[in-house]
């Protein structure tokens, strides 16, 4: 509570004490970096409207909407995007469920092996992607597991679980166990308590973990490239196209994903704001 009251008085004090020029320099710096961060996105969107003649889309030749109507010119590109979307969705659901259970166990219980579980979770977050991808491929090769959609999904769940675990564990640690005890005292069974009390309180963390898994999965190149076999995902297709020229359809799909992602995120923020009111 005390921090909340401090927060409201916080902006006034430093502003009064500091010369404004220093603050202005930092503000300019912040905005310059943000512009730098967004520059490639602006170019991607701009060149999705470029009326380019050949397959190389790198000089501006006039404005057109036509690429938005010709998405099917590269059917394998659309297929790659569908692979990416379904794998990301399945990863979010599976890693979301598995990671939530581990996070719950680590945050709530003391048990033998919790140290090892923490260690593996931390290792899976901090291990270099090349090494994770290469080691998984080594195992698949030696067991003669055919690489494809399924092995990509396995790999994506593997590197996403830990992120969900960490998110959910942090949330579990802030929960008040008295609420669950109260539910039990009022006659709810363990399952009912979990469904009606624990799960709703954990939901924001589970959702955040799931969304993070989705984002990690749909954007992964390195681990996927090791375990994909002949299955192509969106990042793999773009990578392959760099040698022959990246067609404007890639910019179109990139733009559509960007817009959809931004709208979803903004919608989520507005929804949360309305609910908190």
């Amino acid at each position, binding site marked *: 509570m005390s921090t909340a009251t*401090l927060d409201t*008085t*916080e*902006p006034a*004090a*430093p*502003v009064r004490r500091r010369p404004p020029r220093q603050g202005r320099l*930092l*503000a300019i*710096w*912040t905005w310059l*970096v*943000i512009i730098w*961060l*967004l520059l*490639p*996105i602006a*170019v*991607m969107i701009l060149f999705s409207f470029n009326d380019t003649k050949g397959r190389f889309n*790198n000089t501006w030749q006039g404005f057109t909407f036509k690429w938005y109507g010709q998405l099917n010119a590269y059917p394998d590109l659309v297929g790659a995007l569908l692979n990416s979307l379904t794998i990301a969705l399945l990863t979010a659901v599976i890693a979301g*469920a*598995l*990671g939530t*259970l581990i996070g*719950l166990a680590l945050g709530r*219980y003391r*048990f033998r092996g919790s140290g090892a*579980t923490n260690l*593996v979770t931390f290792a*899976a977050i*901090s*291990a*270099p*992607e*090349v*090494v*994770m991808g*290469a*080691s998984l491929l*080594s*195992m698949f*090769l*030696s067991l003669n597991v055919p690489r494809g959609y399924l092995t990509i999904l396995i*790999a994506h*769940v*593997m590197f996403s*679980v830990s992120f969900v*675990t*960490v998110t959910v564990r*942090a949330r579990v640690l802030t929960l008040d166990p008295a609420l669950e005890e109260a539910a039990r005292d009022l006659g709810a069974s363990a399952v009912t308590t979990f469904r009606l009390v624990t799960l709703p309180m954990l939901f924001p963390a589970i959702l955040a973990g799931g969304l993070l898994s989705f984002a990690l999965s749909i*954007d992964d*190149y*390195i681990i996927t490239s*090791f375990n994909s076999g002949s299955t192509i995902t969106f*990042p793999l297709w*773009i*990578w392959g196209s*760099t040698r022959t020229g990246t067609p404007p359809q890639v910019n179109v799909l990139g733009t559509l994903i960007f817009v959809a992602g*931004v709208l979803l995120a903004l919608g989520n*923020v507005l929804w949360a704001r309305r609910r908190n009111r």
Partner: protein
Amino acid sequence: MNRLRARLTPYLLVMPGGLWLAIFFVIPMVYMLSVSLMTGNVIDGFKLTFHFSTYGHALGLYHDQLIRSLIYGLIATALCIGIAYPMAYWIAFRGGSRKSTFLFLILLPFFVSFVLRTISWQFFLSDNGLVLGTLKSWGMLPADFSVLATSPAVIFGLTYNFLPFMVLPIYVALERVDQSLVEASYDLYANKVQGFLRVVFPLSLPGVFAGVLMTFVPASSDYINASILGGPENTMIGNVIQNQYFVASNYPTAAALSFILMAVLLIGIFSYARALGTEDVLEAAAG
């Protein structure tokens, strides 16, 4: 009965995800360690012969790429701290009600594929592209000047791609700094610089540590930036590992290089953690 169930609960909760991580993360790592000690070839198969000299051989051949990766990673991480810290500071202390808007803007690049963003920079920095082409046509640069296929281009790409991973943890640490501590230091006659150096900065170190962890490891093991923005002179250890797998099919060398990379990064992280003090590290690791 109930007590037994209560004792089993955490194990049942951990089991499904724990098995997934054990089978697809821990066992492959152990297996790859054994691969690095094998000899043979793709056609006849590989046999475990405890051939330790693969490590020496791999290091002898690829120490340049390994050292280059670490240097690129270090420079990119240092640049990220330099760029991110003032920004995170301003957003945390002066952002006011627009804090979340700034964070949203910093996260926006993640809505565009990593590979696509890097290609976008390749396009920007190409010899006759938007930036260099314009400067050359104004006569401000010699006609044969190029940025692509140089070390700065790769470091630029790494810095760009991993910057948000540095801003966020530093911001979170700064945001937690109790403003009344800073006020107290002013009351005790600290000036602005002292107040920052002796109160704010030490309190933000766990955030810097978390940021370094999230930037240095992926940056020094990345090969996307080196492939797209770099040239043959800028190959990193990630390129070599990938190449040993898919082109040379020399699995023992690839596995040995992977372990050398892991070992070097782990030693780096732990000695860095030691230098900062273990408590900070535990705090940072716990988020």
